[in-house]
């Protein structure tokens, strides 16, 4: 028994030593040993091979392929504006035909809607050998299964303990660790300066880590419970961060006040804010809340885009808690993310906070290759406001009135 015990202890010691030597020390010193790059290269080759196998497996010919630009949707929406479409049908009489348009729009919305889509993980075009993404893909071949099994072994028996060890080391020194591979920040000269506000699109708590990897920030965010809360409270001890409760209005005013003070002080670290207010699944950018743009000061936009092929970083906080999220993260192949620092923006004369927010949002969406949505991320949790609903009805009735439908109805019967 003793032998077993000492053998295990010995293995553990060697493991720890290797981890420290090969990973922790080099990263602390900023030196790269090239292990990550080699790993990525192997991974990409494997996934390419897997993809080719899948392609071969799908032997059926594809007759009418509607061109879908990897759309995260299952229906093709007809983007004809309402006016054009209704005018086209105005030969019979007004309303009977008009109802088609609204009917169809309604059905399209029921089959899929733009907002709910954004809160489920992005669908992959090709399988990346993780069971969790295997929704559309079926059994293809034995070889593929074997590779998958190997993948499971590698991920759970090697990568997971590896990352766990790192995490343990990391958390105890107040950094959450997971293997971050291939971070490619571009245009570094635009990095946020002191006294500025850094805004970025939000996909997961990892965003904050990635950005802080590259510079120091003061953070603003929703207070959480559990492990996340522990980390939050710990970070406050080192640096002045602002954690608040989203639903408390009093809290919000306090936050604005504190942010203003912080920004006014030029020697303080730049503030990092995620104006969407919640995690989105990284295919689009939702409405930016105007609060952060009212404070004044220079805004440094940052676009963050994860490559979904290697691992899905999106945190669906209503579905997974932080620990199961971290587990998923640690058993993925890798997290690859592109970070773009963009030139600073300031509020123009005569522009109000909302317009400014939208301007920044468009810039970030364009840079990151994401689509832009006017919807509020808060819809993840709440319902649409009534005021929005009446908008389209107003448009429609305006159109009818404009067509002079009230004054000049064609009365009488048709001439024979």
């Amino acid at each position, binding site marked *: 028994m003793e032998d077993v015990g000492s053998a295990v202890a010995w293995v553990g010691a060697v493991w720890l030593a290797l981890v420290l030597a090969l990973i922790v020390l080099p990263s602390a010193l900023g030196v790269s040993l090239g292990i990550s790059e080699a790993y990525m290269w192997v991974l990409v080759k494997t996934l*390419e091979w897997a*993809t*080719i196998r899948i*392609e071969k497996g*799908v032997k059926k010919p*594809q007759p*009418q*392929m*509607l061109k879908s630009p990897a*759309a995260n*949707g*299952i*229906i093709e929406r*007809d983007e004809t504006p309402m006016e054009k*479409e209704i005018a086209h*049908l105005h*030969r*019979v*009489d007004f*309303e009977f035909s008009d*109802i*088609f*348009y*609204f009917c*169809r*729009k*309604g*059905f399209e*919305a*029921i*089959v899929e*809607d733009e907002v*709910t889509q954004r809160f489920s993980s992005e669908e992959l*075009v*090709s399988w990346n050998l993780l069971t969790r993404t295997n929704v*559309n893909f*079926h*059994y293809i071949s034995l070889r593929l*299964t074997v590779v*998958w099994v190997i993948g499971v072994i590698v991920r759970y028996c090697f990568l997971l303990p590896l990352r766990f060890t790192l995490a343990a080391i990391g958390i105890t020194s107040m950094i959450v660790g997971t293997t971050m591979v291939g971070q490619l920040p571009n245009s570094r000269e635009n990095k946020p300066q002191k006294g500025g506000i850094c805004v970025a699109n939000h996909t997961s708590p990892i965003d904050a880590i990635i950005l802080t990897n590259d510079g120091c920030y003061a953070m603003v965010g929703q207070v959480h419970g559990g492990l996340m809360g522990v980390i939050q409270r710990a970070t406050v001890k080192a640096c002045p961060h602002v954690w608040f409760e989203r639903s408390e209005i009093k809290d919000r005013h306090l936050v604005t006040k504190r942010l203003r003070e912080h920004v006014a002080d030029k020697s303080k670290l730049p503030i990092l804010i995620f104006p969407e207010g919640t995690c989105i699944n990284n295919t689009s950018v939702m409405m930016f809340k105007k609060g952060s743009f009212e404070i004044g000061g220079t805004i440094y936009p940052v676009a963050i885009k994860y490559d979904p092929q290697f691992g899905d970083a999106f945190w669906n906080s209503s579905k997974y808690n932080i620990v199961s999220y971290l587990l998923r993260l640690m058993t993925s192949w890798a997290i690859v993310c592109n970070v773009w620092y963009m030139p600073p923006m300031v509020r123009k004369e005569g522009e109000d906070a909302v317009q400014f927010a939208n301007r920044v949002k468009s810039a970030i969406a364009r840079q990151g290759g994401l689509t832009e949505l006017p*919807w509020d991320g808060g819809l993840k949790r709440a*319902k*649409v406001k009534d005021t929005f*609903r*009446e*908008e*389209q*009805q*107003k448009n*429609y*009735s*305006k159109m*009818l*009135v404009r067509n002079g439908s*009230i004054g000049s*109805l*064609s*009365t*009488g*019967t048709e001439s024979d």
Partner: protein
Amino acid sequence: MGSAHSVPAEMRELADRTGFTSEQIEHLHRRFKQLSRDQLTIRKENFDSIPDLEFNPIRGKIVHAFFDKRNLRQESDGLADEINFEDFLTIMSYFRPIEMNMDEEQLDRFRKEKLKFLFHMYDSDHDGKITLQEYRNVVEELLSGNPHLEKESARSIADGAMMEAASICVGQMGPDQVYEGITFEDFLKMWQGIDIETKMHVRFLNMETIAHCY
């Protein structure tokens, strides 16, 4: 992952009946589960969770159509309280696009079904006729968002359209004749020669997942 993906018998039967492919059915099933929050049936309240739908002026009628027993091809009349996935698919199938391989008879039936669905949307009291009042209701709903439009204007639009419909269906009416309402046959007559199939469908993307290499 390793198991072969066999199409269960009921799926195939559903596919035959509603005309969707099995991939589309799978997708719709996922959507159904999303809407029903993993329950087996959907109620009216579940449609509240769709933000896009809130915009729609005839939202009420659309949701209503899902629970209308006439659309569900059940013999009875009235409204169902909740619908299961099969019913959901049945309603969805009204919005299927035309396929290349349909023959004359199928096309005709297809068109009739779509028009019947629309007819039910107007005929809210289920009596088989669209009366002036029912028609006014629809117009008012469509125009309800505009505070500047008075009820009177909405009414006159409805009245004028009703008169036109009457003229198509009945021809010249005497001064004392009362037009009771548009029956389904009259409704069909109105739409003769007008292509509605392309307006009343939702195009599903082909769901064969193509593998891409980077």
